[in-house]
């Protein structure tokens, strides 16, 4: 049902989603331009995941109204790597693609896992599993990449490496990205624009213009962070 979105990859107008008559998304508007990296911050229960699931088309039984235009080719990265444990790494990457083994291999090489095609997911570390999940998403060359706290379950060091990898991959593939996270620093480091969701509405928005590589030591970084934390209702 992708209407003509013109220059936008994602166009959301007046989106409402309810669980048991309690609005989780309450008249939300959101635009994402092609190739734009948007990070979505918000407290637990602010509607982050609901929005992401609505964009992914995974909210079958949820009541709601509003306009939603997303491209046909959307990939999702979940918090867990969600690899099929009974399928080898390469088969997981090309799941549902038919004859795409060569593309799958290239994709695995891109995330630094060349040579692990025949491994079982259980044999990989958490970070490696999440890299396979990234390869599975990007081998489909999505116009929109939806990521639901993809690094939330990783240790801090692995997470830093994954940030660098994700930046590199996004530069190469140029998908529009919506990254749901509750890590303010992660949002600032990765995104072109950070939006803050509260009670189903966007309550703050920051366009990040810091030069790469972005560092928390940068005074501009600290200023953005404190404004975002304010919007999240965290006083520091």
């Amino acid at each position: 049902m992708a209407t003509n979105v013109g220059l936008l990859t994602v166009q959301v107008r007046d989106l409402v989603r309810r669980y048991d008559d309690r609005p989780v998304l309450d008249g939300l508007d959101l635009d994402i331009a092609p190739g734009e990296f948007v990070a979505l911050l918000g407290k637990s229960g602010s509607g982050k995941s609901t929005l992401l699931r609505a964009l992914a088309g995974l909210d079958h039984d949820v009541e709601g109204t509003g306009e939603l235009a997303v491209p046909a080719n959307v990939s999702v990265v979940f918090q867990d790597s969600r690899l099929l444990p009974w399928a080898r790494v390469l088969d997981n990457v090309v799941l549902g693609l038919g004859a795409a083994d060569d593309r799958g291999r290239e994709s695995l090489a891109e995330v630094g896992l060349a040579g692990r095609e025949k491994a079982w997911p259980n044999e990989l570390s958490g970070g490696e599993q999440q890299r396979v999940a990234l390869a599975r998403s990007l081998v489909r060359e999505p116009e929109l990449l939806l990521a639901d706290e993809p690094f939330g379950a990783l240790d801090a060091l692995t997470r830093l490496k994954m940030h660098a990898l994700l930046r590199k991959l996004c530069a190469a593939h140029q998908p529009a990205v919506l990254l749901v996270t509750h890590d303010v620093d992660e949002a600032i480091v990765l995104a072109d624009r950070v939006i803050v969701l509260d009670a189903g509405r966007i309550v703050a928005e920051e366009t990040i213009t810091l030069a790469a590589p972005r560092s928390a030591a940068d005074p501009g970084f600290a200023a953005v962070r404190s404004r975002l934390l304010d919007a999240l209702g965290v006083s520091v």
Partner: protein
Amino acid sequence: MSATTLPGLRPRATTSPVVRRRRLGPGTPIRFGSAIGPVLLLVIWSIGSATGWIDQRVLSAPWTVVTTAGDLIADGRLQSNLWTSAQRALIGLALGIVLGVVLALISGLSRLGEAVLDGPIQIKRAIPSLALLPLLILWLGIGESMKIVTILLGVFVPIYIHTHNGLRTIDSRYVELAQTVGLSQWDFVRRVVLPGALPGFLLGLRFAVTGAWLSLVVVEQINSTSGIGYMMELARTYGQTDIIIVGLVVYGVLGLLSDAVVRLVQRRALSWRRTLAS
């Protein structure tokens, strides 16, 4: 850091003897421990037979059983009866597996299928297959079809129950994944449902194999003219306990062998799981 001792901390006595705690578990395993019981039984049986303490009419001596087995093999009776029995069991097993898997898929993948099928199968499960024998004999006579259907009925239930359970307990997150990567219904069944239900299916298969032998024993003793059970039943009328024991040994070996085969298949098919244990 500092050489001064903190107040309240005394240097540990290095000479105090280590207190050995009494071990509460059963201790280290005995080598070939699982053979001790059977060997002991065999010894008692042999001594009993040799001393005449066990009457030959009640239980033949082990060596008589061995020579009888030799005779039965020499004149081909054991092989032909064994072949007949194996055929019945395998045909019943194969049909039961197909039926169980197909029903489990229908009932697991569609709510309507579940509503229609699951109830009757649960009722069937509550009725021992062997209790259906009188009806089956009336309907199908005492020929091969009655025997195979009885085995089939004993087999399909555990296959259905465990496959269906395996299928229903597939993590919903994988279903969600299948949706996001746009799997077709057929690919969803092939790549997610069947492999996900495989551990359940293989568990069901182990029960099914045991069940198939059990049903076989019973149906072969009803108006059969061939098979291991028939051979034993015939021996009963002549009081040949040696032949009966040969039959029992054959059933035992078949049961053990088939379980070993299923376990081997299980190890091969679930190698993605074994990597966790190894």
